Structure formats: C-alpha cells, structure tokens
C-alpha cells in the first residue's frame, strides 16, 4: 500500500540519461570549416550548386541567433529579415567607402542596437503577442525600405556591389568561404552561450518563466539578450546575401524571408546545435533540387514540410534521436546475441 508508483529517494534507478560534461566547443566549428574547405577544394561543385550551398550557409548563419531565441527562450520573432536588411544595406553603403570590416561591424552594431530598443519596447509582451508585434514591425520595415530612397534607393535597389575577395577564389567561392568562417564563429558562440550561466538562464525562462524569476533571473533581460544575438547573426547573413547577389533590394528582405528564417531552426530542431545547418539544407536547398518536378515543385515541398510538422514536430533532431536509439538498441541486441552464443558452448 505504501510502496506505490512513487519511487523513493534512493531507489536504484539506472542513470541512463546521463548528460556528458561540456562539449568541446571547437568541435562543431572545426567540422564546419573542414566541410567547407573540402567543398571548395575536393568536391568543386558546379556554379549553380555552389550558389545554392552558399545560400544555405548564409541562411544557416543568419538563423543561428533565431535558433537561440526560439530554441533557448521559446520566443518567436517574425521580424528578422529586418536585421538581414540592416546588414545588407550597411554593406551596400559602407563597404566601398570605409572597407569591408567597418561595413560588417557597423551593420552588426546597428542591428543589435535596433534589437535592444525593440526588445525593451516589445519584450514586456507575452510571447505570442511579441510574435504578432514583430510581424507588424517587419511589415513596417518593408515599407521603410521601399520609401527611404536616399538610403535604399527604393525598389530599384543598390547594384554593382562588391564582395570580400579571398585570394585564389572566384566571387561565389569567396562569399562561400567567408560564410563558412562566420558560421563557424556563430556556432562557437551558440555553444559557449548554451553552456554558460547566461544560456542556462535563457533555457530556464523557456521552461518555466515565473519559476526562473524566483532564481533571480530577469525574464525580459534574458529575452533581450537572445533577441540581440538573433539580430547580430541575421545582420552578418544579410551582408553576405548582398555580396552573393551583387545588389541590395527590398524583395530580398520581405516577410517571406523572415518566415524562412524562422522555419529553419524549427525544421532543424529548436535549440539543437546543428539545427540551422540541417534546417537551411531543407528549407533552402531542397526546393532547388525539386526543380525536376516543374510546377509541382512547391506543392511537393509544402507537403513535405506539412508532414514534418505533423509527424516529426521535434524537427530533424528528433529523427536523429530516433536513429540513435535504434542504433543503440541494435548494438546492445547484437552484443547480447554474441555473448549468448559465445557463452553457450561453455
């Protein structure tokens, strides 16, 4: 009667789900750089394919911050194409005059300041209302881009933009290489943030916001940090995007692109350290390789995304977890088999 389903304090539960100590933080960035170098040096894809992969890298980079915002703090923003635009136009206006370094950094700084101001204003809202408010802000940003002619040159856009050349590489290859380097850094910061006390605080606000307050964690403060990080990576992505296309146009930074950015970490598996790379491959590269389906391309793609949302809500990470458990089960099954057969004759 007393020993019911409640297991006691010192019951012998197997510590199955043991979380390993901190990951070596350079592992993932190093893998990304190695993959990038192999792509340029060994695989040498055709121009079209390289453009697609460059776009994947750019989106993966731009979405790293959103992965933190959505995956760690559970807050959704539909305005991040605005930060892409900030990075893009900063590059367009400043790269020639002041050099690429200034252009990259100033785009990043402007985006972060903008995010801090917006965060202070909007993040007092409940998470859902914040999402709606960012939608409004994102639409407003599109209007600004179309009408602030002195800076954006309206719909005609700013054309003939340069890129940061890497010796011995073509234009697209240079952008790809720069993207890989920046992505590696962004992933490094994503991982250090996750394992730091700030990152732990972000995680706890997603899980239980009122409860985390009782630990001395400021909810608004945590969310603003994550929002600013999402603006920073988006600004870097924007700067690369205009280098790839050679021009900056309002159409590159529409609400549709905000939604693509948001879908990337969700498809990949919110908060997972590989989420944006996997997500960008699915969201950016896959539609391009569905071109053989002609006009059914987007239909097929839509069906696929819907199926994922219905059956694999955890994104690609969930698939990986399934495969991992299946693998482990298979291994332990095999091991049992071999021990039983080796034990039998004796």
């Amino acid at each position, binding site marked *: 009667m007393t020993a019911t389903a*409640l297991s006691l304090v010192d019951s012998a539960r197997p510590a199955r789900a*043991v979380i390993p100590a901190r990951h070596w933080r350079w592992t993932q960035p190093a893998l990304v750089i190695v993959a990038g170098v192999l792509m340029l040096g060994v695989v040498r894809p055709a121009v079209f394919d390289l453009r697609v992969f460059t776009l994947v890298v750019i989106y993966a980079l731009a979405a790293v911050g959103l992965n933190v915002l959505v995956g760690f703090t559970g807050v959704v923003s539909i305005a991040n194409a605005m930060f892409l635009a900030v990075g893009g136009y900063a590059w367009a206006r400043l790269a020639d005059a002041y050099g690429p370094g200034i252009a990259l950094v100033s785009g990043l700084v402007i985006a972060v300041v903008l995010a801090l101001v917006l965060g202070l204003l909007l993040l007092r809202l409940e998470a859902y209302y914040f999402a709606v408010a960012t939608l409004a802000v994102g639409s407003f940003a599109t209007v600004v881009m179309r009408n602030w002619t002195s800076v954006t040159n309206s719909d005609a856009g700013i054309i003939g933009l340069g890129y940061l050349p890497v010796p011995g590489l073509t234009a697209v290859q240079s952008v790809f290489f720069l993207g890989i380097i920046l992505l590696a850094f962004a992933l490094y910061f994503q991982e250090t943030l996750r394992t730091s006390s700030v990152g732990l605080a972000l995680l706890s606000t997603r899980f*239980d916001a009122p409860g985390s307050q009782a630990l001395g964690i400021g909810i608004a403060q945590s969310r603003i940090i994550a929002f600013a990080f999402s603006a920073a990576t988006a600004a870097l992505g924007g700067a690369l995007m205009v280098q790839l296309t050679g021009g900056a146009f309002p159409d590159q930074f529409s609400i549709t692109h905000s939604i693509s950015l948001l879908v990337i970490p969700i498809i990949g598996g919110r908060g997972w350290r590989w989420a944006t790379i996997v997500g960008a491959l699915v969201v950016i590269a896959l539609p391009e390789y569905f071109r053989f389906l002609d006009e059914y391309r987007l239909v097929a793609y839509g069906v696929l995304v819907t199926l994922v949302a219905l059956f694999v809500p955890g994104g690609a990470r969930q698939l990986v977890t399934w495969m991992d458990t299946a693998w482990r089960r298979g291994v332990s099954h095999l091991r049992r088999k071999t021990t039983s057969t080796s034990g039998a004759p004796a």
Partner: protein
Amino acid sequence: MTTRASRLVARDLSLAFGALRAVDDMSLTVERGECVGLIGPNGAGKSSLLNLLSGYHRSSTGTIELETSGGVVRLTRTSVARRARAGVGRMFQTPRLVPELSARENVELGWVGRGGARRVLESVGLPGGRRLARARATAAVDALTRVGMGDRVATQVAEMSVGQQRLVEFARAVVSDAQFLLLDEPFAGLARRARATVADVIAQLRDEGIGILLVEHDLAQVRRLADRLVVMDHGRLVQAGPVQETLTDAEVIKIYIGDVELDIGGAPTGSAVAVEPEPVKVHAVVDTADASGSMTPDPHAQTAPVDPVLVARGVSVYYGSIPATHEIDLEIRPGDALGLVGPNGAGKSTLLRGLAGLLSTRGEITLHGSRIDRASTPRRFRQGIGFVPQSGTAVAALTVAENIRLSWLAGTRRTSYQDSVDRVIDLFPEIGERWNAHAGSLSGGQRQMLAIGRGLATNPSVLLLDEPSAGLAPALVAPFADALVRLREQQVTTIMVEHNLGLVRASCTHVQALRSGHTVWSGATADFDDRVARRAFLGEDDTRETNELEPIEEAV
C-alpha cells in the same frame, strides 16, 4: 553577498482579488536559523502570502524588509528576481526544474544571478569565464552531495522521481545562497521515506542558519520541524505561538478540523444560527438514524445482498507524475452517502476528481459492474457519474433554466427533461423562483444550489460533491443538510468531500477518513466519534509516521 541577513520582516500585508481579501493585514517575522510553520485551511491565503513575500503579487499595504548586518533592505516594491538575488528563495508545490538538463546544470541555475562581468566573458567563451564555470560546477556538485544526491550529478532531471527532484531543488537553494526559504508544501506528493529525507535536509538548512517559512498540511512534519507556528484563516492571522500549544488551541482545532462536537450550524460564526436550525437539525439527525437503520445496511451487517453502485480498487490519482492518493479502496451502495473527510492536502478532492475522470488515475473504478477508469469524463457523465466541483460551476451568462438544460443534455438522460426539472425545483424551491435569472446574478448559496441542481439534472447514479457547504452562509448549512438527506431518500447515491463534520454526520451514512493520500479510517457514521476524528485529522501521536493507524480501525 557580503552582508548576512538576520531577519525577514513583513508588516501589515494585504492582497485582494476583486472582493475577496486573500491576505488581510498579515504581519510575520522569520529569524535566521528558525523554521516557522504556516498552517491553515484551503483558501486561507497561505500561498498568497508566500507570493506577496516573494514578489509575485504586490501588497496593497504594508512593508517587507530584510534586516541585515549592513542595515535594512526594503523589498516592498522590488521584483521577484531582485528579491531572489537579495536572498529570499521560493520553492513551489511541484518541483520546478528544467527536465532536459542534468541535476548539476539545474543546481547551477541557482547561481546564474551571480558572477557579474565574468558572466559575459563566459558566455562568449573567454578564459576569465572558464574559472567562473568551474567554480559554479564545483559549488553545484558540493551542494548535491550535501543533500545526498552526490551520485546523481549527471542524471537528467526528467529521469528522476519527485523526491529526488525535490532534493535537487534544495541543492539549488543552497547554491543560490538564499538566506530565507519560502517552502510551499515541500512534502506534497512524497512517499514516507522521501518525506523523512526531505525533512532531514530542511532541518539541516535551518541549523546552518537559513530562515525557513514552511507551509505544510502534513502536521507530523510541521511538528517535527517548526520552532513556532502561525495559523491563518480567511487571509488573517488566527493564532501564533509555540507548536504544541497552538495545535491544541481550541480555535485552531475548530478551523482545521471543523468543530468536532458541532451541530449542523457549527461554522465559525455559529451563534447566528443558534435559534433557527434546531428543528431542522433534529429532523436531519432522525433521518440519519432512520437511514442507517432501515434504508441502508450497516456496514458490519454483511447480509445485505445489494450490489455496490460504485467500487474503486487501489485508485491512485496523479497530478502529472505525482500521485496524490495512494491505492485508495472505496465502495458505495445505492442510496448511501459517503463522506470523505480528512485534513487539507489529504487527497479528498483529488480522489473525487479522479473518479470523475478529470485527473489521470491508476487502479480500477467500476460503476454498476462495468469498468469506467479508462473512459473520458463526458462518457463517465453519460454512464451515471455526476460531479459538482467546489466552485465556478454555472455558466454565468446563461439563465438558471439554460444551465440546468445544459447539464441534462450532458448527463444520462434517464428521465425526461421535465422530470429532472421538477426534481430540482422540488429539492431547491429557491432555484425555481429564480428560474429565468442569469446564473451570475444568484447569491452564493443559490449558486451552490444551482450547482447541485445541475449535478442532479444529469440523473446520476452517483453524485460526487466537492465541499458542497463551502461558500454557504452558516444559516444555510442546516437547510442544506436537510436537502441532502431528502436527496438520499430519493435513492441518489452521493460521495461528498466536506469539512463541516456536522454536515457529514447529518447527511452521510458512511465516513472515510484520508490523510496524506491514504485511507486512515472508514466505517459507519455512528462510529466516527470525536476521538477518531481527532486522530484522523491531527495525526496525534503520529510523529513517527509508521503504521500505528491500524489500531484505530481495530479500536472502532
């Protein structure tokens, strides 16, 4: 934190939710190294007071101060996070950890408010932060070792039992350097051995100089840990003083277990009904005697061939993963009325909600011989379970008639709508008079009648009533008891959770007493005397928490 806080002082705190005064002019002091027990019935305002102290609600009056060696820190208008950083920790009724993180990472969360600029270095992966991270991890492991969880450092919290999670929370409180801990029912949902371990940890923290405010219904633990007691009811201070004296105080006993000797009108302001209910009371008591004599068989006389309507076997009701009742057995025959009694937090209302299918359960529940424990709530209602929750039952924007109609539609429809209406009006003529009024315009007593009327309109085989007398003015309790007796005459079987023991005695044929999710006594109402009630409620001579309750059953 360089200064050590010596005292947490709250003066004249008040909190109102609309017209309800949840906390009314409460003052309280917690010293370093002392454990203050805060007890009181449900809705007394205990959790609200904790919310005021930790900053989740703002007090409309008064002050909250932390007296430290370096002067007085005013907390009255500060945020939850700031108070936590000042050293006022809060623990909630259910463990609130991040399930996907390891025990150590969860404990490290207690530290995140500290570290200053080095936190920034750490979050961008610079060397200054690495030292901080190492110090934090070491502190977390030390704290886990101190609460006896040293071997579970790397275990994911989702894999842990409630007791283990509770201990991780205590480790987190240690790491956060809390000077004062506000504990909201830390023993809720814990089994006996886990209770002992958690009690040891609390005692240890207290002895190390942390001031503890303990809200707890398990009086055995309160007796063991508290240095003094504060008793609340209706948001006000009722009594404060040494543990033993306070627990034997007449007024405290009255609040906590209802007036054991009471007549039907024995609510706190019993004098108001002293004249009126006398005849009703006699009527009701006669009826009870009559009922247990002829209409319903005595439980000891096993000759009755009547099959039970509702049988529960080994029912455990869960809040998430926390079992609130442990393998309860229960049985009721047609026309009987079973009163579930016991101290707050015993699992009475939980059991009712489990029977109604509103909470997940394990064990067997059969109605008229067929299993219903896997059925959804609407299905159970159609099969003959009626449930009247404690509050907020009627749709305020609909009329009384529409509310009754709604319930009839959801129920078994064993009788026609008109017959159901007649029955309700017959039982509660007052409801009939307000037939076309909006439910929101009814008085508290009328609302309660409507709630029960709605339960009846479903034509249930078994009607579950959760605190039917709650919110009834004392003057209404006697007529209400009378109505319940008449209900039984109509062969409606009822199970009620009720704090007013007078009402239980007057209207129930059987009594089952619960404490800490276990049945501690069950039998006919006539055998439920004051001595049994006292032991069932207060757990007197029960500090060791072994199985000495069996003797009660034998003694009866």
